[in-house]
């Protein structure tokens, strides 16, 4: 699978990672190389084989829908790069 520069730029925008123009070409080559290597999986016949998402028991455990933790706003906001009046703050989104 050969990825072109435009595809890499599109993936980078989906992943919210800013890439410089000069990074696109080498990354397109690297990612194509890795995906080519992965394509050996196509040698394996997997018709009718179910996908495996986890080695853990298939059914997730249930618990009571009850509050077991909370009231730690200060501790949580303590790591925020910017916080004001009990909230995380971000650049203005709505004009």
């Amino acid at each position, binding site marked *: 699978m050969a990825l072109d520069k435009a595809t890499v730029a599109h993936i980078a925008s989906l992943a*919210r990672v800013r890439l410089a123009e000069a990074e696109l070409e080498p990354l397109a080559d690297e*990612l194509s190389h890795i995906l080519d290597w992965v394509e050996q*999986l196509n040698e*394996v016949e*997997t018709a009718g084989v179910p996908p495996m998402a986890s*080695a853990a028991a298939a059914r997730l455990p249930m618990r009571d829908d009850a509050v077991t933790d909370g009231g730690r706003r200060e501790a949580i906001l303590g790591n*925020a*790069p910017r916080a004001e009046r009990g909230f*995380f703050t971000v650049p203005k989104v709505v004009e």
Partner: protein
Amino acid sequence: MSDAALLALSLAEARDGLARKLFSARELTTAYNDAVAEAEPLNAYITPTPERALAMADAADERLARGVGLPLDGIPVAVKDLFCTKDILTTAGSHILDGFRPPYESTVTEKLWQAGAVMLGKTNLDEFAMGSSNTTSWYGPVENPWRRQSGTKMGDNRPLVPGGSSGGSAAAVAAHAALAATGTDTGGSIRQPASFCGIVGLKPTYGRCSRWGVVAYASSLDHPGPMGRTVRDVAILLRAMAGHDPRDSTSAPLMVPDYEAALDGGFRGLRVGIPKEYRVDGMADEIEALWRQGVEWLREAGAEPVEISLPMTKYALPAYYMIALAEASSNLARYDGVRFGLRVEGDGLEEMYELTRAVGFGAEVRRRVLIGTYVLSAGYYDAYYLKAQRVRTLIARDFAAAFEQVDCILTPTAPSAAFAISEKSGDPIEMYLNDVFTVPANLAGVPAVSVPAGLSRDGLPLGLQITGRAFDEETVLRAAGVLERAAQFGHLPGFVAGGRS
């Protein structure tokens, strides 16, 4: 006791020495704090915590004096800097977690402190545990305490990688700068550095040790586990780390056996599988020879070697990378410059996200996030991600079929000994191949341990790996103990804190 003699004790010996009051937890911890400082050139620690260590040691001494000692009282351990530690810098080896001090403690480390263990500090790792050489950390590479001594590359005294991603933990334990350590293993990140540094590293069964509070890389493949100098030490540590945790929905609600006691169980008559597919191209002759020696050792101990087939082995690595990278791209979406860590301001919210992640993630992490994003994107999901998950099912079936014939499986841990970073081409796939023997156990979720079993011609440690049935760490450890006794490894690296006693 001299510092060198204290530092040379195994965890089991130190525990027994503390119980018999041959030395205090404060003496032992002071020797280790000094060792951590002496080992600084290895860059094994990101954040040493000597004062906290002494406070924990004093608390242990107080309990020991009252005769109410805990199982790990006064045992100094290092913590891979992927485990959240309350109020102590937790970096995952990444710039993007700058200044992050978690408001909570991971379940595994909480269990260690509740058992009386002493925290020496947080160890270096590949960024977000993504690597096999501990060269991708924002905090710089870790150096292996071993150097080549002799043989084909005699005189080549270049620094070597410790393996990865738990390279700081492995280097610290090998260099006597920690008595034992925690690691995490997503594709071999405990076992491969254990092999490269001449120590024991165990990846438990998926669900045996809680992932709560461990910075996530690939959630269905991440396994916390113990690293130590002996099989017994790892058994002792595993018992303290393991157990059901309601905060991890994949944690297994099972009793934790006494793994140390299990070491004394019988081995005679056990069937040990030797998978023919592990004879891969390019594997060093000396590793093949060590593997054959391992088969003989187990046979002499009364086991019956059985040739088995794990036909999907060759596809484990590409399947692993698809699944790991897809999960990573999803897990790492949380690093957005809003709630913790680094923020790079930009013109608006979108640009802030993009710049924060461009500056905060290193090259390997960006590469993996981009591939993961691609294989999860519309039009490619089935071809790559779902395909890999179907192959994963076949790999798990390979193991299930094998374990109907045998009780455990013996293989090499890694296809080579430790290498110098300049010996690699920079091709990511060449680096990924380090994990060829270790990733299958992550995909299947079964337990596996690496034991130091011999030296390469260059004088570097080589490990053998025992893989077992899900939740049968006891047989895995027992077989590892047989290999350990037969191998009589006993070699020390060129650099040992406190000197050779």
